[in-house]
Structures are given as structure tokens and as C-alpha cells.
């Protein structure tokens, strides 16, 4: 039995929703980061699926871009998280509302 593209796409959608939901619900900055990664990879999965379905290498190339950007983002993001943790010894996103209007 071959696994059809629909399964991959559904998995991508489920992963993306879990990530989005986690981002909205969780307060811990690290968890929120992981959720963002989850969403990015859900997108990657979708890209790859369509690349194979449509026989277009473009989708796979884009995945590499996403991976690179995600890596860079994690570096910067984790750096910020560490800096914040050093100042406040907390990683709760709700503590960081200094930009309140």
C-alpha cells in the first residue's frame, strides 16, 4: 500500500495546528520556541510533499532555505532567552510585557 500525498498533507496540517495552539497556550518561552519549530517543519513537510507530487525541485530547495533560516532564528532566539533568564531568572513569556501600550 502506498501512502498517498493526502496523508502527508494531513500530518503537516495537524503538526502545524499543534504548533500554533502550543504557541498560543504555553507561557514558557522555550516551549514556544519548540512550537515555532514544529510549525516550520510542518511547512517543510508540506513543501516536500508537493515537490514530489508536482515533480518540482523548487519545493525541496525552499526547504533548505527554511532550515537555514530556522537555525539562525534559533541561535538568536535562544541567545535572547538566555539573556532574559539571566536578568529575571524566569522564562515565562507573560513576564515580558514591558512593551505594553
Amino acid at each position, binding site marked *: 500500500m502506498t501512502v498517498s500525498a493526502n496523508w502527508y498533507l494531513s500530518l503537516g496540517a495537524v503538526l502545524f495546528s499543534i504548533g*500554533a495552539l502550543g*504557541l*498560543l*497556550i504555553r*507561557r514558557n518561552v522555550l516551549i*514556544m520556541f519548540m512550537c515555532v519549530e514544529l510549525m516550520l517543519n510542518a511547512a517543510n513537510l508540506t513543501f516536500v510533499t508537493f515537490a514530489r507530487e508536482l515533480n518540482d525541485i523548487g519545493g525541496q530547495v525552499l526547504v533548505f532555505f527554511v532550515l537555514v533560516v530556522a537555525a539562525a532564528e534559533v541561535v538568536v532566539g535562544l541567545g535572547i532567552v538566555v539573556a532574559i533568564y539571566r536578568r529575571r531568572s524566569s522564562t515565562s*513569556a*507573560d513576564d*515580558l*510585557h*514591558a*512593551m*505594553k*501600550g
Partner: protein
Amino acid sequence: MLHLTWLIIALPLAGFVVQLALGRRLGDPVAGWVATAFVALSFVLSVGVYLSLLKVVAPVRSFSQTLWTWIPVSAGPGANGLHVTASLYLDPLSMTMVLFVTGISMLIHMYSVAYMKGDRDFPKFFLYLNLFVASMLILVLGSNMLVTFVGWEGVGTCSYFLIAFWFTRESAASAGKKAFIYNRIGDVGFLVAIFLTFERTGTLEYQAVFQDVNKIGPGYITAICLCLLLGVMGKSAQIPLFPWLADAMEGPTPVSALIHAATMVTAGVYLLCRVNPLLHASPDAAFTVACVGAATAFIAATIACAQDDIKKVLAYSTVSQLGYMFLAIGCGAYEAAIFLMIAHAFFKGLLFLGSGSVIHGLHDEQDLKRMGNLRRYMPITFITFAVGWLCIAGVPPFSGFWAKGDVLDNAWAAHPALWFVGIFTAGLTAYYMSRLTGLAFFGKDRWKDKSPLDAGRDMVEHHSEGSIPAPHESNWIMTVPLVVLAVFAALAGALDAAGPHLSLAHWVDPVFTDTLYSDNEAVHTEWLLAILDAIVAITFVTIGLRLWITRADRPKLESRVLRHSWYLNEIYDFLIGRPGARLAQFSSAVVDARVIDGAVNGVGTLVRRSGTLVRRSQTGYVRNYALAIVAGVVLLLAFALTRTWWS
């Protein structure tokens, strides 16, 4: 020498420039003498030009000189070009004006050197005076309406500067503004007349306009003449624009003599004489001029009967005499108007300078009720003043008799009612001038007592303490102009009586179109009118003297209405001043504060309020922002999906 005409204007103008550059350095009497010298040169030159003009053959005795092209707008499609040159025009009329303007200016410059001695702004006074003479000459010599208008505005500006010369006094400053604003109302009329003339004829040159009089159309001619009348009402202080001239007496006395008696205020008379072909073509306008003149002459004369300030009496008398000139012009008797203008320039200049001498001698006292018996102390001033008094009163054989007689003859020819107003005013004139002379030069030495008469009045500061020192005769710099003017004033009648070929009327006649009303009265009518004039003058002089030498206080003869000049100032204040002030206050309190500030502040408030409102969305919680993004994505998706389904 005719080609040197431009130099007549350039000399006082050069004097102005010299004063501007060096006035302060030249200092007290020198600056005045320098200014006098420039005007004197100008006078000598105009005599030379006059002699040259005499050689030009009579029927076209004129000379025009184009200096440069001023406005060179060439003709465009469907429109006449506006081509105006800065050019001068010399004919018997303007020549006469130039001669007496420069001559009298010279004398008054000289007088001012003594009168203004020790003033803080001595050089500045002569700076303005020179500029005034130059402007007046531009006005007189202008060959087209626009050049005349430049001079017209120039004299108005100088008049403003000189009335407000002692600007630290509140009353002088506001009198200057008053004169300027009244003149401005008139200037609008003059400007509209210029526009209308250009619209109908496509040119502004007087001679070209006069050739095209028939092309203008009767309605337009009347409109132009009435607009000009409004213009000259302002400048020559006619009803209803005359109250400024009384306030103009806040200026130094030489200014009152030169600008507000002899020259500037006669500019209106000159202008109407200059455009006589237009007036001739519009009898309605001419009749209006005559009526305005007669009414002004009468009303101003009544006011002059009840004033206490020696200069105010003379000011209203000037208004009244200007009214006579307008009456003459309205009757088509331009020669008579010019004749009276010249005679008036002499005797009114003389009277003003005489009053200046009195004021000077009494240490700045202007109240007639605080003078008296001055003939003992100031003999030269008294004799010269008396000549002026008899002239203006119309006592033969002095010039006023001839000049006023001329006007009244023509008024009789035009309409007996005008003549009646004229002769009645002549009687009033004789009366109030005799009152003035009687109060100032005869009677008791009232200047000695600190009279209770003035207890309530605010006096000039330095009189309030101590006794007034005895009056003294002025020095020769002031008396020489008085004597010269007195001689001219007494003899000016000869201008008319000199015989048919030498008389002024014969000299200026080519300038004027025929008179409107046929002046074909029988000789015995003329004699009768003249004798009547003389009787009226002598009677009223006697009455005035008898009444006012014996007593200085006759309240019944000085009714409150006349003391307040028919409440004209109050009426204008009520009709124009107060509503204007209310409008200004309304604009300030409501339009500015509510409408304009309201709009500006409203925008600010709106931005601030909406900012406060929108600020709440910035919670600072990342999850809120994320939710907003998710919601946005969902909405976009929903939109995209529904679109695909529907289409």
C-alpha cells in the same frame, strides 16, 4: 529751459536723499537750511521754466516730457496693451501750481527752521518736508493718471508722517492714522476711476483721454467723475470725509500751513480742474460737485464759529474754503477755483504761520480763550495776521474779496440757491475769523490769569505750574515768511484785476473747456453782487469784532452741536467704529477662539482620543499578538476559500 522740467521735481527729491544720508550729521539749523536751499533752487528753476513757457505760442502753450517707459505691456490678443510712461506735462494750469507750490514751500521751509528749533527730530522733519514737496510736484506735473496717483499717494504718506510727527503723543499718532485711513477711502475712488478710464479709452494720458471723451459714453463719464469725486473728497476734506483735517492739526504748525492748508488739500481741486473735459461732459457729476462743495463750505464754517483751538478754527476754515473751490468747479468756473486756490494758499498759509507764531510766542498755548491783547506784544505777527484775516473775510480790496466774488458770481449763474449758501457762508467766514482775531489780538490779557475757565481741561503739561511768561515776538526767520506771504495775500487780487491780457483767468483759460453755465450776466448784476459781497463781509466783520472783543465767554453763540462739529465723529464712531470694533471682538472671541482654534485643537483631541483607544490593543503579551496573527490568517484563508467556492 523747458527740458529742465524734470529737475524741478529732482531737486527736492535730491534734498530728501541728502537729508536721508546726512541729516543727522548736519544737525540743528544746517539741515533745515539745506532743505530750504533745495526747494528754493526748485522755485528759481520753475520761474525760469515759466519764462520759457511764456515764449511758447499761446493756443498750444504746453510742453510734455517723457522720462522713461514705466509699464511697457504690449497689446495682447483681444486686449489693449497697458503702456504707461513716466512723463511730465506742463501747461498753464500745472505751471501755476508748480510756481505757488514751490514758492510757498520755500517760505514755509524757512519758517520751520525757526519753528522746529531744538526739536529732537529736527532733521527728520525736513526729510519729510522735502519728500512732500517732491511728491506734490509729481502729482501736479504728471502727464497721466498713474503718475498723478504716485504723487497723490506720496503726499498722503508724507501727510501721515508729518501729522504723527510727535508720535509719542497718543493724540498725534491716532490723528495720523485717521488722516491716512480717510484718505485711503478716497483713494479707492481714484483707483476705480483710473480703471474705468483705462477700460473705456485704453490709455491713461490726460490729453489722449480728453480727445476720446465722446467714446467713453455718458454713463461711464458720470461714473468716472463720481469716483474721482470720492477720491478728491478724501484728499480735499469734503463732506463726508472731512473730520480728519481737524485732527491733522496735531502736526507741527508749519505742516498745517503747508500741507493742510496751502498745497496738499488743494490737490483734489487741481485734479478736478485737470479733468475738466470729463466734468464738462457730465453735468450731473458737476452739479454733485457743486452741491458737495456748497454743503461742505456751509457746515465747516458753522463748526469754525464755535471752536476754541486756534488751529482748529483755521482747519475748519480751510475745509470751508475748499468747499468754495469745489462749488466753483461744480459751476464750471475752473479759473475762479484756481484763483481762490492761489489766494487761499497765500492767506491761509499766512494765517497758519501767524497762528504758529502766536503759539510759539505764548509757549505752546493754543486755546483762544487764554490769549488776548496780543497786538501789543507781537506787532509784526498782528499786522500780517490782520492782512490774512481781512483777505479771508472778503473785505475789499484784499484778495479774498476778488476770489470769493468770482466764485459767487459763477454760483449765481449756476443756481441762485448755491449762491445763497455761498453768500451766507461768506458772512459766517467773516464772523468766525473776526472772532478769532478779536479773541487772540484784542481784549484783555487773558493769558495772564490761570483762568478757572480751563479748570476741567487737560492742559499742556508745562503750563500747569507757575505763571505764564509774557508773550514775545518771533525772530526774523519766522517773521520774514509772514511778511512776504502777507504782501502776496494782499496783492493776489491783482491776479484777477490786472486786466484782460495779464489776468490769471486769461493765462489758464486755454486749459479749460467753456464754462457750463453761460456767464452772461449784465455788468450791473456783477456790480450788484460784488457790492453785496462787500457789505456782507464788512457787516459780519463788525459783528464778530464787537461781540468777541468785549467778552470771551458767550456760551449761547457756541452751541454744543457746533463745538462737537455736528457730532460727526460720534456718528462715524457709532455707525462704523463701534460695529467694526464689535466685529473684530466677535472675530477674536468667537471666530478665532472657537472656530479656528476649535478646528486645530479638535484634530489634536481626535488623534489623542483614538490613540488612547487603540493603545489598549498593545497588551505586551506575545500570545495576544500571536492570536491576532492566527485570527488574521484564518480570516484570510476563509476569504480565499469562499472566493474560490463562489466564483
